[in-house]
């Protein structure tokens, strides 16, 4: 029994040896490590989280842009009795309000709506012709400057110049939503950085475990004249490959989740999503980012393994 087995084993070994060996053979036995088998799964988990974080960052950026620059971002200021004289200057109340707004550093753009525009605005509420003979207030459309002083600062001045002026308060809302979006974005980037840090640590730990496990082989090869670069290259090649595969797996696993989230968010984001589509409808930037994740994983695997192995070898003569 044992003889037959041994014979079969020898024949298999001979077959293996007859195959032309690649120049970069597995001298250090890297393919046999336990730590190596776990690495792709750990990296996949990190890549999965990174995909979600990236989607969060990009979605938040999209919302924020929408609310700050889209039509929703325009503020309106109502000036009743616009052609009466302002209290603090020889101008009409409307002209005075517009001048004050133009002079404010927090305001990017000021435009007084025409009579026709105002009527059009009111039409859905009052019906056509209903405004004839009404003393309509003037309406000034305003766009705030990013990061400028809040409109609230100038509101008091406007009221003093033209008592009764109303500043539409949804500026507060856009500001809050913008702050929320920025916070989500910052959080997502922080999470991405954290995930990359953990991935780096995972690769470093796996590489060190691999070095310790193959200590004798590494020391022998070092003694035979292998340079630090020779040894680091072998570990790094393997870590690069495993991290890439792990990254790819994590991104692929995240796609259905992202598709679902995109479908849920579509009405808010103003887009259309077809939840039955085979591939989820995702922003272009997100696709590019997702494609970059396995590459970044591979880069982390390569760089971390190189640094870890070289640091481990440095104390040797």
């Amino acid at each position, binding site marked *: 029994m044992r003889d037959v087995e041994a014979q079969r084993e*020898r024949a298999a*070994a*001979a077959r*293996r*040896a007859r195959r*032309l*060996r690649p*120049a970069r*053979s597995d*001298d250090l*036995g890297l393919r*046999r490590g336990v730590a190596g088998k776990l690495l792709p799964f750990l990296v996949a988990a990190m890549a999965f989280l990174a995909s979600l974080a990236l989607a969060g960052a990009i979605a938040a950026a999209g919302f924020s842009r929408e609310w700050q620059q889209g039509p929703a971002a325009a503020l309106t200021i109502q000036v009743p009795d616009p052609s009466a004289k302002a209290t603090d200057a020889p101008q009409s109340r409307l002209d005075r309000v517009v001048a004050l707004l133009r002079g404010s550093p927090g305001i990017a753009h000021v435009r007084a709506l025409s009579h026709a525009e105002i009527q059009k605005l009111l039409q859905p509420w009052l019906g056509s012709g209903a405004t004839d003979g009404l003393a309509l207030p003037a309406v000034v459309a305003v766009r705030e400057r990013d990061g400028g002083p809040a409109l609230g600062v100038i509101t008091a001045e406007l009221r003093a110049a033209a008592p009764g002026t109303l500043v539409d308060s949804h500026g507060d809302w856009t500001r809050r939503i913008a702050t929320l979006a920025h916070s989500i974005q910052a959080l997502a980037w922080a999470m991405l950085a954290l995930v990359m840090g953990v991935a780096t640590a995972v690769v470093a730990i796996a590489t060190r475990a691999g070095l310790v496990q193959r200590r*004798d*082989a590494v020391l*022998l*090869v*070092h*003694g*035979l*004249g*292998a*340079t630090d670069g*020779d040894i680091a290259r072998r570990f790094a090649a393997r870590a690069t490959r495993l991290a890439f595969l792990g990254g790819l797996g994590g991104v692929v696993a995240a796609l259905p989740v992202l598709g679902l989230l995109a479908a849920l968010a579509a009405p808010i984001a103003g887009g259309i999503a077809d939840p039955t589509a085979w591939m989820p409808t995702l922003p272009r930037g997100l696709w590019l980012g997702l494609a970059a994740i396995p590459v970044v994983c591979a880069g982390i695997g390569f760089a971390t393994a190189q640094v870890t192995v070289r640091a481990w070898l440095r104390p040797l*003569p």
Partner: protein
Amino acid sequence: MGMSAVVVRLEAVALEVGAQRVLRDISLAIPRGGFRWLLGPSGAGKTSLLRLLHLEARPSEGRMELLGRDIGAAPRAALPQLRRRIGMVFQDFRLLPHLSAFDNVALPLRLAGRPEGQVQADVGEMLAWVGLRARTHCHPAELSGGEQQRVAIARAVINRPDLLLADEPTGNLDDTQAQRLMLLLRELSRLGTTIVVATHNDVIVARHPAPALRLATGRLVSADA
């Protein structure tokens, strides 16, 4: 090696391992193609001296010149290139357990980036020479002590080293195999390889007279010219 005919030169070399001084005040010179027995009782420092010559450690004191390089002044990055010119037969063989006899012997050639065709030919020939052709694809665990020792010898000489170091290389060999090994060493020495062999085997030393370095408690007590 350049113009220098001296392959190994030690001047007042000491080696400390931890706090222990395992070698002290060693001065010696071995010319190209020279053969030296390295003798002394167990614990005298033979293995330590070979480790030093194999660049597994740098001298704690004194000056060591190897293959024309001042080791004390050589940058760390220069050492791998030197190690490739030094063959070592370890007392405990240090074969890689996951590699076949063939792949163990092939290691130095593959590290040097030799073409695979040449590796196949050279390793096959070398294994045949040490009488292990039939054991080419066996792993170390399947080999006897003597067979493992012959694989270790084959690995040390496959690269035609300029300096060959052997630590008790006949410890697991029978008489015939020991004689064969001595023939090989003599031939390599004649071709210009400098050789240092540490041994306990008085019979073989008597049968192959050569200059000897005698160590006792880390000191060189006598060195034949």
